[in-house]
């Protein structure tokens, strides 16, 4: 008996065909690849002023000539499903005080050109940018590491923000209700890229609306003269 069994066993091939196993694994891999999110989304930090009333003395004073006010606008369309979309984004700006005599409001665009937002901010923020560029050159050479570089840039920016006499632009971003959300984020991006130390998002005030009306030819639509803007 035993002898007979032994001889029969020899006939079995011990090799297993792995092809179906590979097939199955491939299917599983495909499934996991399609269902996963490898890229985590990023975030942009934002700080808004408090709604509490601030004492007049506690308010930070800024030089009017430093201020640049950007007004973001667009066209809102709502489809049948009630989903609204903002298109035709437009950006206007004025420097310093609003010009209530001639109602000047200039056009500007996003971009890298000299007369686009990037170029304009670079020109206005030259002092800080030279410091930052020097640091960047050091960092690229490997003379300082990441954390030192970041800390130094932050220090330089904070120093500029605290120094009332420094030559620095102060940016006020005023999106109308019709502005595109992506534009607001883009604008905040420009603040980061150009190392703007002081900027703020605010609602349009009365003077801005007047300027806007003169520029566009119709008053602000869609209840834009909105809610919480404590600062005057």
């Amino acid at each position: 008996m035993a002898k007979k069994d032994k001889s029969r066993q020899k006939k079995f091939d011990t090799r297993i065909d792995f092809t179906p196993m590979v097939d199955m694994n491939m299917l599983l891999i495909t499934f996991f690849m399609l269902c996963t999110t490898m890229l985590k989304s990023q975030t942009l930090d934002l700080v808004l002023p408090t709604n509490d009333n601030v004492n007049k003395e506690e308010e930070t004073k800024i030089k009017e000539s430093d201020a640049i006010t950007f007004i973001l606008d667009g066209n809102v369309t709502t489809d049948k499903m009630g989903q609204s979309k903002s298109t035709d984004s437009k950006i206007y700006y004025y420097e310093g005080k609003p010009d209530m005599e001639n109602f000047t409001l200039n056009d500007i665009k996003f971009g890298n050109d000299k007369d686009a937002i990037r170029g304009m901010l670079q020109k206005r923020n030259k002092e800080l940018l030279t410091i930052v560029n020097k640091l960047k050159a050091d960092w690229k050479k490997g003379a300082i590491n990441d954390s030192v570089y970041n800390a130094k840039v932050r220090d330089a920016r904070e120093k500029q923000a605290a120094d009332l006499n420094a030559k620095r632009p102060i940016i006020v971003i005023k999106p109308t209700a019709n502005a595109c959300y992506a534009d607001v984020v883009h604008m905040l991006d420009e603040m980061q890229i150009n190392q703007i130390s002081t900027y703020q998002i605010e609602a349009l005030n009365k003077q801005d609306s007047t300027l806007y009306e003169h520029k566009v030819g119709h008053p602000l639509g869609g209840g834009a003269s909105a809610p919480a803007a404590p600062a005057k």
Partner: protein
Amino acid sequence: MGKVKIKKQSTIIDMTAMSDVTVLLLTFFMLTSTFLQKEPVQVITPPSVSEEKVPDEKLVQVLIAPNGKVYMNLTGAKDSTQLSTETFRTEVLSQAYNSYRETHPSAPKLTAQAAKEFSKLNTFGVPMKELTKWIALPMEKRDEFLKNEGGIPIQISVKDGPRNEFQTWLAAIKSVMQEHGLGKDLIGGRGVAIKAEQSSPYSLVQVVMDNLQTEKLNKFTLMTSLKVEEEE
């Protein structure tokens, strides 16, 4: 000259090595993957140069659909000694619902079963009066309901008036997080993330920001997707 002999070759390929590789890949994908979270609406976040990642714990995510409906998603701490996601959600639910019942005594009571169900749901966002009804719905109908009849009421009717439902939720979240010693995580600026469609009009986002400001949550983040900015 003899004939060239062609060696007979077996066409069977050994799949063992291939199988090894696929299993390795499979393991990699299984370990690194985080599944796509199911959300009532898919939104495309605006691009930004910011490189900070979204925190994956102690986060309140506010989702703004293109039609203006607002949903929320709560995540607790990863550290098991701190507030877990389930407890976070149940406690927020009971606090928010109780404060709603104070003004609406006729609203049905919340059962323990419903609270448990709620803690397992990722995204919520229905008016309070529909809440118990929504939780009682079967799984597949909940999403449909969320999409069509959902949305947390958010309009600020009177300034400094009674809280709207979104503010009620925020207040509940704040007090629960403070009770568990996580108040700093919420207020510090990385606790609240706003997720909105890039082409949405700014007014939709502004309403949410105003509500956050009213509840004294001035620091928060906007969720963005990565954009690589070319050097000048």
